[in-house]
């Protein structure tokens, strides 16, 4: 079926280029939704801003780094604490939020003095912390503040600190994706290669595009440790600033989120000859395949098979239990981009579910090539979906459960359908064998909870009926 115009989009026909329903015999050279394009006026987009893509997704995960947000206070709060990525140093990065708290006078007279004072204050308040990211936001970019010059002054004055500046205000791109890009390229240009790591194993990797959502990184790190593989840097799950400066010394980059960090993996390959090994670390079968690839790369297949056997023994029976009960259930995945292609086959193969619709906020056409190739015929694929389109889709496919974030999740709850938090998870980790079982459990609980059915009951009408004796 060609690209499709939903009923709700009759007044914004441009949306047709962003919606595809896969039909038998078609391939991705015939139809591919437009994506990473400007949101069309008239559509109520669910996207975040470019600054958010840099700060909330990538930079803010670092566990030993002050995240100085140069802008009004709202930019700080709205990108803090909404994604649960813990760390093994008592969650430093989740406990604090930093902002220059720009006011009208700073906008009129310039914010550089305020920025410098805030940076120095933050370092003095937290004397053990010697690393900082500084982000521009819309206001400070528009008035032409020069945070790189300020960062140089602060580095010179304090002497023992290192600062990375991300110049990616919210308006810099069409979505969060621009922030990923700017941060990746800035990091490889300015910071990678500036610290030499201590190499302790003959096998070394970078893990790229894992952000330790509810402990994902802990699962992956545990596997690497059991295999005797040193993680030079995890970009950026449970990572330190300096670990990420030493990525040039790994033998291979194992890439999970190719959308948010593929740029860095590509540049590591181009500049340092470190190959990029793309894997899916969500999903039971995918995790085994990812580990096997790493095992072949290092010639340690025996260790990998032993690890897989050990994990299968712990988790396979649980996974089978959920599969028996979730088989045939319909699921929609409305997340950022990569989770569409990471999850569609995983949910179908591991749990026997049917993925009926997928929507991406910031995916590029590369992501749609992957997901349409992996998805089955009849599934709906949407770029930058709006709320009315979501209602159309619900009517068309009647999912049993929806994976999405809390914002769209509220919409889903209002129509009395269960949703599972596809961004920050309900009760993760979701990666690895253990994570696949957690994910299955959360889907099972969502699908079988009586809450949504009870919420749909009109108790006021029922009460009146009981009182009047007609119930």
């Amino acid at each position, binding site marked *: 079926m060609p690209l499709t115009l939903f009923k709700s989009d009759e007044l914004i026909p441009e949306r047709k280029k962003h919606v595809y329903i896969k039909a038998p015999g078609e391939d991705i050279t015939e139809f591919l939704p437009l994506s990473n394009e400007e949101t069309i006026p008239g559509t109520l987009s669910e996207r975040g801003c470019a600054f958010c893509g840099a700060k909330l997704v990538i930079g803010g995960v670092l566990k030993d780094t002050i995240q100085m947000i140069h802008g009004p206070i709202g930019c700080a709060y709205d990108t803090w604490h909404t994604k649960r990525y813990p760390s093994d140093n008592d969650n430093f990065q989740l406990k604090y939020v930093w902002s220059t708290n720009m006011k009208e006078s700073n906008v009129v007279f310039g914010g550089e003095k305020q920025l410098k004072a805030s940076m120095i204050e933050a370092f003095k308040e937290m004397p053990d912390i010697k690393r900082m990211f500084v982000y521009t936001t819309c206001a400070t970019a528009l008035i032409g503040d020069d945070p790189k010059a300020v960062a140089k002054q602060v580095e010179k004055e304090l002497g023992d600190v290192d600062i990375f500046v991300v110049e990616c205000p919210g308006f810099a791109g069409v979505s969060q994706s621009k922030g990923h890009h700017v941060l990746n390229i800035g990091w490889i240009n300015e910071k990678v290669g500036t610290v030499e790591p201590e190499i302790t194993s003959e096998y070394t990797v970078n893990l790229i595009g894992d952000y330790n959502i509810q402990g994902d990184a802990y699962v992956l790190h545990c596997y690497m440790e059991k295999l005797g593989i040193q993680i030079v840097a995890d970009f950026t799950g449970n990572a330190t600033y300096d670990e990420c400066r030493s990525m040039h010394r790994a033998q291979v980059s194992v890439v999970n989120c190719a959308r948010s960090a593929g740029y860095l993996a590509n540049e590591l390959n*181009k500049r340092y000859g470190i190959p990029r090994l793309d894997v899916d670390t969500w999903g039971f079968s995918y995790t085994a395949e990812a580990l096997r*690839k790493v095992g072949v790369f290092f010639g340690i297949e025996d260790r990998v098979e032993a690890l897989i056997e050990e994990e299968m023994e712990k988790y396979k029976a649980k996974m089978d239990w959920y599969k028996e009960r979730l088989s045939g259930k319909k699921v929609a995945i409305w997340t950022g981009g990569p989770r569409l292609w990471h999850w569609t086959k995983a949910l179908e193969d591991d749990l026997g579910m049917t993925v009926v619709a997928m929507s991406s906020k910031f995916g590029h056409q590369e992501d749609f090539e992957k997901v349409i190739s992996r998805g089955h015929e009849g599934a709906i694929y949407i770029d930058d979906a709006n709320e009315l389109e979501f209602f159309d889709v619900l009517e068309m496919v009647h999912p049993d459960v929806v994976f999405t974030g809390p914002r769209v999740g509220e919409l889903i709850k209002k129509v009395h359908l269960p949703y599972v938090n596809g961004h920050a998870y309900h009760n993760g980790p979701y990666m690895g064998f253990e994570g696949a079982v957690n994910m299955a459990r959360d889907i099972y609980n969502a699908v079988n909870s009586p809450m949504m059915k009870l919420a749909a009951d009109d108790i006021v009408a029922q009460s009146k009926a009981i009182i009047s004796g007609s119930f």
Partner: protein
Amino acid sequence: MESNVNELYKYIQQKYLWQFYSRNWDRENNINGILDAAKELLMTGKCSLGDSLTDRHYYSEAKIVVSDIKRDLKFVEGLNEKGIAELIDRVKAKLIDVTVTNSLNGELNVGYY
């Protein structure tokens, strides 16, 4: 052979991420490097790739491909060396056609990452 080519092509499209890297040259390098190594593994059980990190990447992906298709696509076991070579070469051409030459992805030729 036509149906075997289509079956393997669809299998690869659905399973592997290496065909969808960011740019044309990455995709072409991966498809050629990995499937040439897979062809050699299927024909001889060995791989003549060297020990560079890139070679090890191709080899690790190829070994997974070979293991998967031997398990899931039974017709592969029945092919002789000539048949395997024809199968892989035709699948490679089809993959390059779909993921590189005729891809609708507007970013594939962007000169920077």
